[in-house]
């Protein structure tokens, strides 16, 4: 079980607002998070990953405290080992597709499988600059999966994919998530695009 109870100050164009979240996520559950721009969805994911620090509260994952202001616990992102798909992909310009996966994992069999899953076998020697937007986004997803994370955080992961590729990939991902037993939080401004991938919803206002 993932238990999150945090308060985080958000900077907005007209000042500040407080993001208050109190939620629980069951293991293996896939949750779609949606809401208007600037409502703190990305910040919420970053707080879970340890890339942003809430002002107060706690984050407990599988009975392990990742963050707690009272006991002053704040695990580094390296120790939380979540998979994270960034909205801007955050691909490394100096690495090829294969090198991205090899940077994240030493499991050669798993890497080959991910390349097949993303239909990127023939592109494995290409650097991000030579990939289309959709290919870059698929690589960002594959890289996040490379560490076989138990918690996967995805920020608008399908926005650059065409309908056919999206449907195929989502079907494949569903079985991979189940195989890994991963809990998945997906930020998506368009809940319909997930094609029934999510088990539950969380709305930001």
């Amino acid at each position, binding site marked *: 079980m993932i238990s999150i109870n945090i308060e985080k100050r958000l900077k907005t164009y007209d000042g500040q607002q407080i993001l208050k979240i109190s939620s629980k996520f069951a293991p293996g559950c896939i949750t779609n998070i949606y809401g208007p721009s600037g409502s703190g969805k990305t910040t919420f994911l970053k707080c879970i990953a340890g890339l942003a620090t809430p002002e107060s509260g706690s984050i407990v994952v599988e009975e392990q405290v990742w963050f707690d202001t009272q006991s002053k616990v704040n695990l580094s992102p390296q120790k939380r080992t979540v998979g994270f798909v960034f909205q801007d992909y955050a691909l*490394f310009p100096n690495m090829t597709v294969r090198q991205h996966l090899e940077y994240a994992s030493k499991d050669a069999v798993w890497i080959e499988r991910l390349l097949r899953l993303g239909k990127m076998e023939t592109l494995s020697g290409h650097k991000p600059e030579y990939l289309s937007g959709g290919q870059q986004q698929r690589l960002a997803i594959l890289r996040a999966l490379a560490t076989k994370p138990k918690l996967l955080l995805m920020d608008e992961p399908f926005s650059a994919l065409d309908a056919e590729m999206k449907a195929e990939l989502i079907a494949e991902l569903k079985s991979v998530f189940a195989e890994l037993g991963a809990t998945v939080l997906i930020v998506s401004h368009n809940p319909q695009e997930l094609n029934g991938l999510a088990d539950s919803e969380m709305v930001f206002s």
Partner: protein
Amino acid sequence: MTDLAPVWLSLKLATLTTLLLLLVGLPLAGWLSRGRSFLKTVIEALITMPLVLPPSVLGFYLLLAFSPQYGVGKWLQDNVGLSFVFSFQGLVLASFIYSMPFMIGPVKSALEQLPVSLQQASYTLGKSRWETFIRVLLPNIKPSLFTATVLTFAHTLGEFGVVLMIGGNIPGVTRVASIAVYDSVERMDYHSANNYSLTLFAITFVLVMGVFIYNKSQAKSPIV
């Protein structure tokens, strides 16, 4: 026949200074590029000072600081047997400080231009700050890194004031090419002065041209 020893000494000094600045300056630039604090602002201002300060001022204070008569200089002389005044190691120290902005400035700016999500992505993959710095950040600022390295080397070759203040003009020890030019002119030996000047001009021109050509090729194909 012009004595080439000052040229070799200049090259040795520039190589050592550049290597030391790569070793110390890169992590320092990495640290300075992350977040803001008053301490970082003060350190950055201090690093930038050699760009605007007369070299003689820096040389004067280094001379005072490392004088074997008192303070740090006396302690180093008595306990470690190390003297930074009128010695080659003094030149290295002075060059290190004087050329610091040429290494740290471009590298820090380039690191700040990289999207913060690059290092965040690396952290979520379990990679340490150091591994992220070496394998993700530095490879993606190669043109700036190359420019900083070459400019540091070329700038050290051309140092005069600070080197003269702390090192003097001891043949084979502190008499680098830039000082040899000045010394030759004082002795009215214009032939030697011209040889030293021409050598320094040729080396630095080739280095600067190299930077321009490299950066132009990188602009055509930024991802190598």
